[in-house]
């Protein structure tokens, strides 16, 4: 047996810590009552229902070849994942101060754990909601599994990067806890959740296409639904912005990591 290389040891330590924090977050999130799991599904379901009702009032029709509840659901779930994760990570360090008492726990660990947890929750939610809609008779032809995974991975990286950034700011700057949720909310309206990018007037479309979340909506629909064609969504752009976000997040964390565990800085 070779002595374990430092990288493997470090990986194992990291894995243990993230796993333990994952469980801790799971318990904190859902507590001791099972209804908690229902809540996780409830919010996107309600949103899908509301948007569908509006759509129904305006005239029952498919949007760009996709049944409208599926059209909404496919974008709402990734967006909610992003929104919830960033808001959760804003308080990740603060909520885990007790566990920072153990030196193997670094401030980034609860951020990673929260991202993973939300990813699990919303993946499960996605399966539930899409599956439910299919059972209700809203059928579609599945397109490209790998593509979906690629988009979700990019979204995951994008969210993690932003979450790290936000977690550092949340721990070190009091005001950011108020500001960040307000900044995120408008993205609900410009991320192509209830419209297709192709339906936008050309001047506005180019502007909104700087928003990576719009690309997520476009691409996820394209890869899920064989009938949906997106000419605007660019996996390359999404990939690049995700890398940039991840880099920004990690850089911010790295430059501030000492401050995060130095007394008199947090709170």
């Amino acid at each position: 047996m070779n002595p374990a290389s430092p990288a493997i040891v470090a990986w194992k330590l990291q894995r243990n810590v993230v796993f333990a924090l994952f469980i801790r977050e799971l318990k904190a999130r859902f507590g001791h009552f099972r209804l908690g799991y229902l809540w996780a599904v409830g919010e996107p379901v309600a949103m899908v229902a509301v948007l569908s009702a509006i759509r129904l009032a305006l005239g029952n029709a498919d949007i760009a070849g996709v049944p409208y509840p599926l059209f909404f659901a496919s974008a709402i779930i990734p967006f909610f994942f992003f929104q919830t994760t960033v808001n959760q990570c804003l308080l990740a360090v603060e909520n885990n101060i007790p566990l920072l008492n153990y030196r193997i726990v670094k401030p980034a660990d609860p951020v990673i754990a929260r991202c993973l947890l939300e990813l699990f929750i919303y993946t499960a939610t996605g399966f539930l909601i899409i599956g439910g809609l299919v059972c209700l008779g809203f059928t579609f032809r599945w397109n490209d599994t790998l593509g979906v995974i690629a988009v979700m991975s990019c979204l995951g990286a994008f969210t993690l990067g932003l979450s790290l950034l936000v977690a550092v700011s949340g721990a070190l700057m009091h005001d950011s806890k108020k500001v960040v949720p307000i900044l995120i909310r408008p993205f609900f309206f410009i991320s192509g959740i209830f419209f297709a990018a192709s339906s936008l007037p050309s001047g506005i479309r180019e502007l909104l296409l700087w928003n990576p979340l719009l690309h997520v909506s476009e691409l996820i629909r394209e890869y899920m639904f064989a009938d949906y064609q997106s000419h605007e969504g660019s996996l390359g752009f999404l990939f690049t912005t995700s890398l940039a976000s991840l880099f920004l997040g990690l850089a911010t964390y790295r430059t501030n990591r000492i401050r995060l565990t130095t007394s008199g800085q947090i709170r």
Partner: protein
Amino acid sequence: MLSIRNLTKSYKTGTGRNYVFRDVSIDFPEDVNIGIIGPNGAGKSTLLRILGGIDHPDSGSINCDRTMSWPLGLRGGFVGNLSGRENCRIVCSLYGMDTRTIRNKLGFIKELSGIGEYFEEPVKYYSTGMGSRVGFALSMAFDFQILLIDELISVGDRNFRQTARNAIDEKRGQSNVIMVSHSMGSMRDFCDIGILLRDGELTVYDDLDEGIRAYLPKEEEKETYDLTTEDTLKVGSHLFTAHEDREATNLREQINGRLQQIEQALRDGDSIHDEGKLFHQLGLAYSRLGDLDQAIKYLHKALQEHPDNPSYHIQMVNAAMQKNRVEEAETVLAEAFKSWPENPWLLNQLGNLKTLQRQTAEAFDAYSKAAEQVPDNAGIRHCLAVTLLSQGKMEDALQHCLKAIEIDDLNPTPFRTLSRILAAQGLYKDSIRALREANEKQQAQSRTLSTENSELKAIRVLLEKATEQIG
């Protein structure tokens, strides 16, 4: 090996920078338990946090080749809305234990913490003491070579401190503690050497007490004892005993002083107002001090001066009987009865004398006569009861004994006699109740007065009076 090199740590304050450490280097001694002493705000907890890797210095390094625990403090370590078990499970899995090991460790932690089913309740409902019990037990589930303890143990009660002590002792040879505490008592319990942290400097004292002395002026040490009520009580009683001892010493010195003064006056033939009184009081003082020979000598002299005072006779008889000089007592009594044949106190002494001579019938007569004159004297009543008990007249004995208790229900002795009488009648339950009562009275009595000191005070009063007779 654990060492610190060129450590600097500062905080920003409103007016500038406050340096906790400025370029500090130290090698921590190995294989000893270290207590870190220092005033509030000196940076003791900060030092532990830096050692524990959860706080960062401005500059400098910590070198350690041993496994070190997290700082075991009162705050932190547990998530409030999770139970003790869940918290411990999280920490165990943080350190990468597998599920089976964790299950065993959780059992161990619950057991060692001794908080029972509270282990399953959210930590936010825990008292400080319970939290620290769990925190300590959790740390014991790991095999750390150095335990960093920040006040954790000193908040516990004595029971917990003992448990902690034992648990650490079990790891002796593998584990040492570095400890911060405001309770010098628990420092002494756990630490061998002291490191004084003051004004940003660390000084090693090979003897903990030396370090404590260097830090605390003697007065202050008492105040810093007071972290728990139990500690306070303990210290309180220590101080009380110390105070008592000091007072007793003082009293003894005063008494010796008085005695020397009086003896000197007698030797020098100073003018004395009333020699009889002086001798009497001196005799009583000696009797109370336990020097019966001297007592008898002086009481005798007093009696010669004042043959007309019955109480002088009585004291003389009493002293003589205590010294078992029965004949002398008899002579004095006979002399006294010539002048006061009906005096109840003389009769009481006669009864005592007869009891001593095992003539219970005569003793009974004497006590009865005395009791006729002073029916409300508990002492005489009790003597009657004891005499009747020895004669086997239980009914009468019971009556007198109850009467004695009725007159004075604070004295434990009649209760004991009552217990004996009831036992002789086969009323064991009641007998035991009476005995219990007696014990309670005894305790109440010893609570209200420290017997030794009040005795000494009485003697001092006697001697003061005696000295007044000296011109």
